């Protein structure tokens, strides 16, 4: 009865109803609703809507039009269930009785699965990508086909491991489709043995490869092995093509297992597997030529958008089978990455994972932040970023190893012994530790989400500063000669930490502002206010950094044994630290750009964009709302921006060239960073921008007001956030 869901009967117009292939169950029954719908249609006039307490116009927007192919996910499908698909031969086992074709098709399945996996990593749902594979949906039935079975099992175990990493890292917003696995058979009995199963198959194929090589040299091996497939001319090529694919999966699985080990203990082993994976990927790419040519197909022709190395459609996939498990309703046809792009994706992923595994687990927060910022420049995808986040923050400690208070004391340039001080139990200090942890997590997310979160985060840092300042005042008040040693020490610790919190807040603000350039959130007409704000923040950042370094030097000196300052000590004390000089270079660039943009606006109305509905003040308020709310920096507002820029003219620009100073500083400070290739590269770019802009400023000052054909543009061609001024006659 359940199989014949609807018996043939008359519909309203007398035509027999089609048998439905979705069977009724014990608690459901099919019934013809046509008369009811007809009556409703007759009863309603155009423009009327059935209305109820829980059904209104807003709710009605969720309506799907039945049989509209764009909306009705049920209408465009070949099979209504996995069993139906299997019954109709959509996923045969064996794939073919011809062993050569069977091997070919198996390779196609492997390649398509790789493309699906890459598409999943890039943001599509698991249901519509990897689990569009019917063999994977019914893994047990692949048992007679050792090759397919072992490959599918390790893919399933790999997907589960990757989902686990991303879930633990708690992906956010746009990336949370990635971890949706509802209804998918991701947990399999025996998946923990996937490696040994794969190794057994790898071993067999390796022996088959040795056998066919021996046969080609007319040598006999002691064992009699059945060949992989029936065409001896193709045996070696197929064995190699399969081996590199199996080994890639094996090493990739090992990478995930090694990187999961706590406190970064598996990173070195992971690097070895990454290297092996890269080698196997190269072999996989090289195998494409053989695979395309083995049936006499031309190796040219456009296979760039195909999902397999052979260019053929794989057997055993149906993306619509799982459409009801897709996160999106109605589900849409998605485009699986091409095989070529999938391989490129994995090459990049492996490279990004290698960068993470090469990291020295530096206990200094400043170095770590620079590493994370540098890592993010390559725009790593979710899988790599999740792994980084889990490496950095484990069990509430840095790298699962360093307590956050110890990280903070180091960052605040306090003495080593401070990390054991009882002050770490202070409520505000504990909260500060949480903020540091959250900061590291935020910095590992995608740039768009990161910027939004950093902006809101500033309020938390402002609040913690206020709390710490209050705690300092309340607990220690005025320091007197009658204060105990411990009270003095506590007070010093608070003061150091307060200074560091300020510095860190300005660093976060700086990151928030420059991410706006990376995300293309500023139009050129807004550059003036952005550079002005950047200039203000950089000045504060430089000030706090220098103060922190001066205080730490002072503390270290007082703990030292020397009673008198040597000339060398005095010179060191008065010298500006290279990190601060670096910031000074940026300050000059920001100031120069602010003034040039202001002068261009004031003199020739360039980049002025008076809209019909609002003014520059509203744009300023919107861009810097979060910063203003957190009083960062204090007393910097729209009126002060106007005051700073209203009087800028070409004549004032001509009097002082900020870019020349930036250029000079960049040149001078290079030697201090000779062991830091990233900083050197950054300085090179800053110098380049300064040089260009200096020349452009000279030209503009000479001709700007006189030559209407002079066109000026600001391009981020040499640096990600300091624009290069391009001035040319049109």
């Amino acid at each position: 009865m359940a199989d014949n869901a609807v018996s043939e009967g008359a519909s309203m117009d007398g035509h027999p109803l089609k048998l439905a292939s979705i069977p009724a169950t014990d608690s459901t029954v099919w019934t013809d609703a046509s008369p009811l719908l007809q009556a409703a249609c007759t009863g309603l006039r155009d423009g009327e809507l059935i209305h109820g307490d829980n059904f209104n116009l807003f709710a009605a927007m969720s309506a799907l039009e039945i049989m509209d192919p764009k909306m009705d996910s049920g209408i465009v499908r070949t099979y209504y269930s996995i069993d139906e698909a299997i019954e109709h031969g959509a996923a045969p086992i064996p794939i073919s009785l011809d062993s050569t074709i069977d091997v070919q098709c198996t390779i196609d399945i492997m390649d398509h699965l790789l493309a699906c996996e890459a598409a999943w990593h890039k943001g599509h749902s698991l249901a519509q990508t990897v689990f569009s594979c019917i063999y994977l949906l019914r893994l047990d039935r692949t048992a007679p086909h050792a090759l397919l079975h072992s490959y599918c099992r390790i893919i399933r175990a790999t997907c589960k491991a990757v989902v686990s990493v991303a879930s633990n890292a708690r992906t956010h917003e746009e990336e949370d489709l990635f971890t949706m696995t509802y209804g998918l058979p991701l947990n399999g009995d025996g998946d923990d043995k996937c490696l040994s199963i794969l190794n057994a198959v790898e071993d067999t194929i390796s022996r088959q490869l040795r056998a066919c090589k021996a046969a080609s040299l007319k040598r006999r091996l002691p064992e009699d092995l059945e060949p992989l497939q029936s065409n001896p001319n193709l045996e070696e090529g197929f064995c190699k093509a399969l081996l590199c694919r199996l080994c890639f999966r094996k090493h990739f699985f090992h990478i995930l297992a090694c990187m999961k080990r706590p406190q970064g203990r598996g990173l070195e082993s992971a690097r070895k597997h990454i290297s092996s994976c890269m080698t196997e990927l190269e072999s996989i790419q090289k195998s494409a030529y053989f695979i395309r040519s083995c049936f006499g197909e031309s190796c040219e022709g456009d296979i760039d958008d195909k999902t397999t190395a052979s260019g053929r459609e794989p057997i055993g996939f149906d993306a619509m089978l799982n459409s009801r498990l897709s996160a999106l309703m109605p589900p849409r046809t998605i485009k699986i990455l091409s095989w070529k792009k999938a391989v490129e994706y994995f090459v990049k992923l492996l490279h990004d994972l290698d960068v993470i595994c090469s990291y020295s687990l530096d206990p200094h927060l400043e170095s770590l932040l620079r590493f994370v910022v540098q890592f993010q420049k390559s725009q790593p995808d979710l899988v790599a970023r999740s792994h980084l986040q889990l490496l950095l923050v484990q069990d509430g400690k840095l790298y699962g190893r360093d307590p956050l208070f110890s990280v903070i004391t180091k960052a605040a340039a306090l003495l080593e012994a401070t990390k054991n001080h009882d002050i770490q139990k202070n409520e505000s200090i504990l909260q500060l530790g949480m903020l540091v942890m959250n900061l590291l997590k935020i910095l590992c997310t995608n740039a768009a989400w990161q910027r939004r979160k950093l902006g809101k985060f500033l309020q938390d840092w402002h609040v913690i500063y206020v709390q710490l300042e209050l705690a300092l005042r309340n607990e220690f008040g005025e320091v007197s000669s009658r204060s105990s040693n411990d009270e003095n020490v506590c007070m010093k610790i608070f003061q150091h930490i307060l200074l560091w919190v300020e510095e860190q807040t300005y660093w976060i603000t700086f990151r928030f502002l420059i991410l706006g350039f990376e995300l293309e959130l500023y139009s050129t007409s807004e550059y003036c206010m952005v550079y002005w704000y950047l200039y203000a923040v950089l000045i504060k950042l430089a000030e706090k950094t220098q103060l922190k370094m001066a205080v730490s030097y002072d503390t270290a000196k007082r703990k030292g044994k020397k009673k008198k300052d040597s000339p060398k000590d005095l010179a060191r004390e008065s010298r500006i630290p290279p990190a601060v000089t670096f910031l000074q270079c940026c300050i000059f660039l920001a100031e120069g750009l602010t003034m040039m943009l202001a002068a261009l606006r004031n003199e020739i109305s360039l980049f002025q964009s008076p809209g019909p509905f609002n003014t520059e003040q509203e744009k300023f308020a919107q861009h810097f709302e979060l910063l203003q709310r957190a009083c960062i920096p204090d007393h910097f507002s729209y009126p002060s921006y106007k005051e700073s820029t209203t009087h800028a003219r070409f004549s004032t620009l001509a009097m002082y060239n900020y870019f020349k100073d930036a250029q000079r500083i960049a040149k001078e400070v290079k030697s201090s960073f000779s062991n830091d290739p990233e900083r050197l590269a950054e300085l090179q770019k800053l110098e380049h921008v300064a040089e260009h802009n200096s020349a452009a400023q000279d030209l503009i000052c000479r001709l700007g007001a006189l030559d209407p054909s002079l066109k000026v543009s600001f391009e981020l061609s040499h640096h990600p956030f300091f624009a290069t001024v391009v001035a040319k006659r049109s």
Partner: protein
Amino acid sequence: MLLFCCSRKKPREGERERMEGIPEDKAEFDEAEIEYVSYGGEHHLPLIMNLVDQELSEPYSIFTYRYFVYLWPQLSFLAFHKGKCVGTVVCKMGEHRNTFRGYIAMLVVIKPYRGRRIATELVTRSIRMMMESGCEEVTLEVTNKGALALYGRLGFIRAKRLFHYYLNGVDAFRLKLLFPPPPPCQEL
């Protein structure tokens, strides 16, 4: 457009085509010949639906259109050229996190009529109505450069970048226009 009741991730691909590119067959007309009309009733609904269906691949049911034009008819406008509907804008407004905010849901101009400020005029009328209705700000999501330029000229800033907002991996920008505060009432 953000379909509030569906998944947050937007699968639509066709929107980028709305505002981009130089129309292949340009219509010859004087901008003064374009007539702008506020949504007037059921007779306008099929015109709006046909325009949007034609230009976008996103499937909107009739209820989606009705939601907007029934609740906020004063915010939707149509552009006609010699009796033919060539463009439309559909909007809403309401309370959102303690802010009274306008939202531009759909903006379409057919290809032969693009590049002649019809879209700008349609949007401007809607925004003006929102401002007069007490909205504090206006927002929408866009992807293409043409739309970014259009809204940029009207005073919108790019408030957020929405990562992989569309299923084909394309990012979107959330644009926002903040109205200046109303002038204080002056005592006579």
